């Protein structure tokens, strides 16, 4: 994996090297051009200023073979300009009068002869072999002409010269000054070295800058990465401490916000799951409170069920045998639904079970139950209930209603459905309901069916506006009242209700106890 740091360093180094190389190229070219032209100009001035001295030295010393003096004087002259490689002297005819040892013999062609015999000094370029005559004007400027004095393209600054041929004013001698560009090479080398040093420094600085720059990015990124890893391993409390003001800082801040949300959500999820587990447990406990099997008593066939709207519901029912031929059955509905209702429902279940031994009378039992519930429950928690006793010997069905839904009666004979008398007050509202509790009786013949239910059935919603209602309920009983068993009747009615509800959410606990006379 290539790190950001490496990429930065490579990119910046390449950039610096490219920029400096391009710069270097132009600088060196410029310097070369400048030096080229300097060498030419210096050579031209040098020729002009030293010609007389050269000729004098030649005549005085060389001709008299005083080569010691001649060499000394010529050496002194040449020392004035290190870009002049050699000095040769010819006569008008082009015969070489003096040439230093080791210098290539002059090839006297027409071109050279013309130059030697001209009135004007001339230069010859190195690469293009152009011969340019130098016509010095009064103002000091030099005009470049051909041998006929016609203007020609001047010497380019980039052009190098091979030599200057300087015809001396005595018209007898000509001096040929050879040009040397060794110094130029040396100075270009120095410039190149400077540029290399500059480039090296530049690259070092560039690398430094790149390292710092990348550190400002990779550092926080590293912290961010580490933090994310720790977070991913499960430490949801991990936060990234990156204070940079750039995108990385924003990313870190965003990450931290996300971490907070995730931590919160996770905690909520855990809580929910825990709650769910407790609810599930509570539901199981509540289910355990329900009768495991339907009781069997002479004269009746019973089937009941409760379907809570949530995990734990407020509806309840139970069958409490009093003796072999007597049984208490009840259906209760605590206000609301959910766990609070379920708790009260469980309390009621336990109380009724407990009081059934003490109170044989339904009314007394109800009064006592109310008294305890009033004491032990909140003031806004009530329970409606229908408590019934079936005496299979006397074939008597008696009931007490504590503000509960009216028992629905199907007569096998008339095939009609009626409602039993309502009455009573919900348990837990008043401390003493002995004045309002009334015990009633229903004659249950063979084939008759009684429905004891919670309001969850008539108040089952199909839409936001339409409930199942008592009419449909009664109709359902009418239709199914003839079914053979309480269970069948139960199932058929529940099916009706479910079919009506469709996919609409069950809003309340649905409890149905079917008692069929046999």
């Amino acid at each position, binding site marked *: 994996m290539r790190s950001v740091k490496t990429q930065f360093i490579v990119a910046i180094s390449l950039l610096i090297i490219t920029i400096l190389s391009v710069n270097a190229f132009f600088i060196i070219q410029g310097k070369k051009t400048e030096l080229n032209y300097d060498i030419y100009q210096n050579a031209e001035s040098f020729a002009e200023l030293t010609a007389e001295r050269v000729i004098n030295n030649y*005549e*005085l*010393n060389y*001709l*008299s*073979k*005083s*080569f*010691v*003096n001649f*060499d*000394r004087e010529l*050496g*002194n002259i040449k020392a004035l300009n290190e870009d002049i490689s050699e000095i040769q002297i010819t006569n008008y005819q082009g015969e070489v009068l003096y040439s230093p040892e080791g210098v290539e013999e002059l090839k006297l062609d027409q071109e050279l002869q013309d130059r030697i015999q001209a009135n004007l000094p001339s230069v010859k370029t190195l690469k293009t072999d152009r011969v340019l005559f130098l016509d010095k004007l009064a103002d000091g400027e030099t005009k470049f002409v051909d041998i006929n004095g016609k203007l020609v393209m001047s010497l380019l600054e980039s052009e190098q010269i091979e030599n200057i041929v300087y015809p001396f004013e005595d018209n007898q001698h000509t001096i040929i000054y050879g040009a040397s560009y060794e110094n130029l090479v040396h100075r270009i080398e120095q410039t190149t070295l*400077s540029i290399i040093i*500059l480039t090296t*420094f530049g690259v*070092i*600085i560039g690398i*430094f*800058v790149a*390292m*710092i720059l990348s*550190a*400002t990015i990779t*550092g*926080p990124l590293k*912290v961010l990465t580490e933090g994310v890893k720790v977070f991913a391993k499960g430490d949801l409390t991990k936060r990234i401490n990156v*204070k940079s003001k750039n995108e990385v800082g924003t990313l870190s801040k965003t990450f931290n916000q996300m971490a907070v949300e995730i931590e919160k959500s996770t905690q909520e999820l855990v809580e929910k799951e825990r709650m769910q587990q407790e609810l599930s447990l509570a539901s199981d406990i509540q289910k355990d409170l329900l009768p495991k099997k339907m009781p069997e008593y002479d004269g009746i066939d019973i089937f009941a069920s409760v379907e809570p709207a949530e995990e734990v519901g407020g509806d309840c029912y139970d069958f409490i045998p009093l003796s072999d031929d007597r049984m208490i059955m009840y259906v209760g509905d605590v206000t609301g639904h959910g766990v609070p209702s379920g708790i009260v429902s469980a309390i009621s279940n336990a109380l009724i079970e407990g009081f059934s031994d003490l109170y044989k009378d339904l009314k007394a039992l109800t009064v006592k139950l109310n008294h305890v519930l009033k004491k032990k429950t909140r003031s806004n928690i009530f329970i409606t209930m229908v408590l019934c006793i079936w005496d299979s010997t006397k074939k008597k069905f008696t009931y007490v209603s504590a503000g509960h839904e009216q028992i629905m009666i199907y007569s096998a004979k008339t095939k009609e459905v009626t409602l039993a008398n309502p009455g009573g007050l919900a348990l837990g509202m008043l401390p003493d309901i002995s004045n309002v509790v009334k015990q009633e009786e229903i004659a249950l013949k063979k084939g008759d069916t009684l429905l004891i239910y919670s309001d969850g059935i008539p108040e089952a919603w199909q839409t936001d506006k339409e409930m199942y209602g008592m009419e449909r309920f009664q109709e359902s009983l009418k239709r199914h009242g003839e079914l053979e068993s309480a269970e069948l009747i139960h199932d058929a009615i529940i099916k009706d209700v479910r079919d009506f509800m469709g996919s609409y959410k069950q809003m309340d606990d649905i409890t149905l106890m079917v008692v069929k006379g046999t």
Partner: protein
Amino acid sequence: MKQKGKIIIGVILFIILLLTFGYFFVNQSYLLNKYKFNKLQEHTFIEDTLTIVSSSDVQDLKPDAVDFETKMRVYGNLYEGLVRFDKNNNVKPSLAISWGNLDDLTWEYKLRKGVRFHDGSKFSADSVVEVFEQLSGREDSQIPSYLKHIESIEKIDTHKIVIRTEKPDPLLNQKINSLLIAKDDYIGTGPYSFLAFDKKNGLNLKAYEDYWGDLPLYRNVVFKAISSKNSRVVEFGKGEIDILTAVPVDNSVVFDDKIKTVPSLEVSFLLFNQQTELWSDPRVRQISTKVVDKETLSSISGKYSKAVNQFVSPGVFGYSLNIKEKDYLPKKAREEALAIFGQEGKKVILDLTSDYGKIGEYIQKEFKALSIRVELNFISPQDLVQKISNKESEMHILGWQSASGDAGDLLNSLFLENAQLNSVFKPGSEESQRVTNLILETNQELNQKKRLNKLQNIMDILVDEKVVGLPLFEGERIYAVNSRINFEPRTDGMIVLNEIR
């Protein structure tokens, strides 16, 4: 915070780096120059001893010695003058840093400050005046002939002197070059100080670390003489010699590519003492020119020599192109000699040093044809100089190096009346007067072209008209140089140790 800290440190380092780079870049030429300057101040001596061998020994190391061997050892090494010649014969400052004319007869010299003699004493104007006065008063010193026209040297202040000449003297600086400033016991101001000197071990010099100029390369130098040619060859072959000045010409091939030569500007010639009966006759002098065969002479003098027709070699200012080669006409010469001497013949003693043995024998042989019996008298250079000075030499072979590249040296030293080495003309004679006047005129001529003409004219007179002697040959100076040494020979033959780099 850790990260932030790193970044801060990084930025600080970056700024420091940038400032450092900026400083160096902006000041690079100054810093480079400073570095080079500091480097130049450092000096490391080579501890190996530099060994220079010649064929002849020296008797002493007097600063005013004129013999070549002594001068070669001391000039620019042990002793220095006010000015010096560089290898191109340019006059350069030495103990004097500048000079100028106050008027035609007066030269002012400003002396270098901070110079110390090898004994630690300070060099000053007093040192120059002392030396001049000492030498002026000595009869045995050769220097006075050079300084003849100097009237006085006067101290102006501790580092300024004024030299007054009797007549305008354009060659004064060249003459002053020979005035080496020294004290007794070989104490000078040069880059080397005296260590020891004896015949067996030669002259031992040691680098003088308080020298005012560039320190030399070698800490220890020894100048030795090995008279045997074969020994010189063997020793060089063994690497025991770094510079051999007297390369046996016969063995020069042995040295392969280690040979370096330079025109010596030295001409060897025969001079006739016109105060003797034989040579006072111009006819005798004329016929003597017909018996010297240049070709034979060249072959005798060796591979690196060639015959000359005048007393200075080509290359010397004053060399005359008018003088033609003399024809070798021994028969004619004999006839003319017979006419002058008859059968009797004459006898003459030829004084010469041992170096000229073969030449002497050749002269002896050729002059025999003229019925002149030449007796070869081999003497030491010192004795020869003495004999010449005493005007006792009938005929002698002398070698003269025109070190300055100007014929004026030779003319002033050998042909000026009252010159110590002038044993050619009879003092007071018309010829002597004439030549002397011409020489003096030349000495004062400032126009170089006119001066050249005058010098050439004098040479024509001496060679063709008066035949004061026979020019024999000029030689190249041959050196064998160890390849590890960067030595370039000088035309004046001096070995200036500080020039070895």
